[in-house]
């Protein structure tokens, strides 16, 4: 049994690239769900077991940080770690986001090891694949 991951980004191509990169990382992945914004992400989180969420910051309808706040207000979702993926590289901005509840931050452009390192750090390394 592998990780169940949710990727949230309004860009279809970035969702696909993130999925491809996670699959290249060597992580043992069970399934990767996709959502185009925070609203769609909450729908998936209501019906599916998710181990970790990778989300963009700027999205229509509900941003990445609004998603983090909504999850924090829900007893069933508040323990699911959210990792933000963004082009913003400022340490000050990243600290602000960490203080607001995100678990980790990945800067674009990213590499497979960025995902592997963060998943292992946040969830533990018991599910590493044998690739």
């Amino acid at each position, binding site marked *: 049994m592998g990780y169940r991951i949710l990727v949230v980004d309004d860009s279809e*191509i970035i969702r696909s690239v993130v999925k491809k990169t996670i699959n290249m990382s060597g992580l043992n992945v069970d399934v990767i769900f996709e959502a185009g914004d925070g609203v769609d992400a909450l729908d998936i989180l209501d019906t599916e077991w998710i181990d970790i969420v990778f989300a963009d910051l700027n999205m229509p309808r509900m941003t990445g940080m609004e998603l983090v706040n909504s999850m924090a207000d829900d007893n069933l979702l508040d323990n699911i770690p959210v990792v933000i993926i963004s*082009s913003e590289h*400022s340490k*000050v901005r990243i600290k602000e986001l960490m203080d607001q509840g995100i678990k980790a931050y990945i800067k674009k452009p990213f590499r497979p090891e960025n995902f592997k390192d963060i998943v292992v750090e946040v969830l533990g390394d018991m599910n590493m694949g044998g690739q």
Partner: protein
Amino acid sequence: MSGISNEILFDVTKQVFEEAAFVFLEMNDEIEDWEEDMVQVIMSFQSPESEGRMVLSASNEFTIELAANMLGMDEDDETVLDKGKAAIGEILNMICGVMMERLYGDEVICKLGLPETQDFEVDQFEEFKQTAESYISLAEEMGARIDAAFII
């Protein structure tokens, strides 16, 4: 002063294309005229010192190749044919992020706009070229031309 130079613009653009799309760029020494089917993507930014725009120009054909590379798919695959503009927009988004850190460091917050892709217009292209603080023309391995501009 932003500290921008053609060398920095080249370094950052080359780095992002390589890391995100496995596209390898060199400076374009033999600049040919633009083809007809071109696309331009523009993104605004705001640093503590200034605000400006970055622009990438390339052929539609190249942007489809770019999308295919980013997705690890064949460029003849039907599913990548409509993803070229999104692909070059995302690449410019990444270039802007890396460029802000390179020019202003990571201790300040720079605001990034959204990449806006539009059809290529020669008059606008010439305006970008004339007003840019830094402007370079690049070529990928198969010879496709990609131009990058940093405008303040």
